[in-house]
């Protein structure tokens, strides 16, 4: 199946996962998983609860160590031992809880842990300019002031700040965990627009989502996990809602044999 996908899309994947296994005690969370993430494409990672979406994400970001399998970055094999390794490659994850400090302002949150200094003191002016530029590039313009505390932002704005924080560091792959969960209609639209803009900037984007509306609205490619196995990866245009639901709930067993063999 992997060869088919690569032939269909001419470019080389930014990140290739091959034969990834991960188990926790007796529970096999991931079983020989393959995944390709392409620059300038949004890949939606779908799957029912417990399918292994989070585990796969955490294996890529270095939170978990896979038991077997290989990860290739721009075709070269890499070992990601911790989140610092993945950050060095340019992989950033935006978790569902966003990890923002409510009492700090937008600039302070975006630079948290990587503050710029001038004569040993924080260089607020420089950080504010850089943060403003990133937000303007991503056209996150609804905030009143980038010096307002994050506590005063709406859900969509908070998500936007978390994404901007992730892409600020020359990142090349951004993984978003359920970015639209708990957001209203307009806020969701705002975040999905932001996801498209990341793609237009040439980043590889992976969106973990339950919400098939969002998936079909934004994704160029779909990858479906079922009980720890990658049952299919293909261009989004080759799916319809019905087929995705079927892959998510049955692993595609009812469909043609060639696709269920993974």
């Amino acid at each position, binding site marked *: 199946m992997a060869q088919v996908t690569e032939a269909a899309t001419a470019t080389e994947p930014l990140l290739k996962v091959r034969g990834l296994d991960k188990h926790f005690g007796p529970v096999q969370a991931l079983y020989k998983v393959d995944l390709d993430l392409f620059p300038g494409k949004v890949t939606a990672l779908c799957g029912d609860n417990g399918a292994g979406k989070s585990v796969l994400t955490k294996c890529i970001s270095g939170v978990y160590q896979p038991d077997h399998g290989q990860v290739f970055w721009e075709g070269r094999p890499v070992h990601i031992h911790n*989140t*610092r390794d993945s950050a060095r490659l340019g992989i950033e994850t935006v*978790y569902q*809880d966003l*990890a*923002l*400090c*409510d*009492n*700090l302002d937008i600039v*302070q*949150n975006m630079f*948290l*842990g*990587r*503050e710029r*200094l001038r004569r*040993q*003191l*924080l260089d607020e*002016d420089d950080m*504010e*300019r850089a943060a*403003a530029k990133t937000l303007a590039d991503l056209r996150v313009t*609804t905030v*009143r*002031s*980038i*010096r*307002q*505390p994050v*506590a*005063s*932002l*709406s*859900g*969509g*704005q*908070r998500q936007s700040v978390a994404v901007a924080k992730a892409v600020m560091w020359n990142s090349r792959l951004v993984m978003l965990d359920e970015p639209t969960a*708990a*957001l*209203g*209609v*307009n*806020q969701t*639209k705002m975040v999905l627009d932001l996801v498209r803009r990341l793609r237009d900037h040439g980043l590889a984007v992976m969106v973990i989502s339950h919400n098939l509306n969002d998936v079909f609205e934004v994704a160029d490619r779909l990858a479906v996990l079922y009980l720890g196995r990658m049952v299919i990866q293909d261009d989004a245009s080759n799916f319809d809602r019905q087929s995705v639901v079927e892959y998510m709930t049955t692993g595609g067993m009812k469909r043609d044999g060639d696709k269920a063999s993974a």
Partner: protein
Amino acid sequence: MAVPEESPDLTVAHEAAQAEVPPELVAQTFGEYARGWLARLRAGQSGVLPVVVGLVAIMVVFEIISPNHVFLSAGNLVNLFQQSAVFMVLAMAETFALLLGEIDLSIGYVGACGGVIGVQLVQPVTTNWPWWAAIIAALAFCFVVGVIQGTIITRLLIPSFVVTLAGFLIFNGVMLILLLLGPFSGYPNLGSESTNVKVLFDLMAGTIDPTLSWIGMALVVLGIGGIMWFSDRRRRKSGLVAPPVSLTIIKISMIAAAGIVVVFISNVNRANVGTLEGVPWVVPIVLAVLVIWTILLERTRYGRYVYAIGGNAEAARRAGINLAMVRTIAFGLCSMTAGVGGLLYASYIGGMSNNVQGGQLVLFAVAAAVIGGASLFGGRGKVIHGVLGGLVIGGIYNGMYLQGLDVQRIFIVTGLVLLAAVTIDALSRRASISSSAGVGR
């Protein structure tokens, strides 16, 4: 883009968020600033305003009811500041723990140990250390004690409440042991003719020459005002978020006015017989602690991490911040600052004895920080809040003392003020949560 649906949603978000946004961030003119400030006030987000109003109320009430209206006399105001100084410094110390969402109950007696060490080391008949070495030794002792307690809290993951409660008992005992050293029957004092000892004695009440007081004040105001003016101007010029010019001018004028008032009052001859005039040394000492800790907490990486941990420890951890290190150092700095408070206490009393009420001091320190506006829940508060809260407690203490009221009434009133301050904190927190709940959080 569903534009018709989008606009009402964002409006709601903006209106609810209005009160949360500090007005200096969005205001271009003074009028806008004032309107934003009022919006925040209505939502209970008023910064130092309640404590300043409280201070003014205390002054007015006690001036009216105090016998012969002595409350606002120069002599009493200087006295009030000296009485408040220990509360202020201990409250600034406690701010480090409170910002992390922790508490340090031991600082009363740890600070007192620092005071005893300082007093003991300068005694001419025993060790006879130079005053500066004694001060360094006292502060180093306190810092190490804080680091040890902080290490137990952060590495063994034991709640700070329990660890510092144990520290409270332990250092009460240590203080009594230290007091008994040397031939002083437990009462080492600073009443010596030696100029070396007199330096410690003068920390609190020794005065600076009136002319030098004016010059020093002018330098401090010019320095702080100049930094504010040029940094605001640079930010305005480069199009960054900056307060309007008028606001910068008002802030600098207020600092200058405060400086002039303090020096003017201190330079009045306060003695009944002879002369006693000039700014007492305790004023620049408190100011120095305030300025240094404010710079550390608001202008350095370390300070940013303290706030981040208090706001969301998990976010700080994911940002690669070494939580245990930041926390441990914070407990060290907390205890070290308490050591400054202990030395001031010793200077005020003129020595040390077993009369130190370490438990009461620490409770007043926490109360002062909270009355000043620091949050007990972490992440919110500034060093200046400790100073303002310390003045409130000192003011109540002093005013009721002038009335000839017993200590039991003083406790009750101080307790009620603390209750009011915590209630304001909790209500404003609830107001801000309910206003953000409306925007889908």
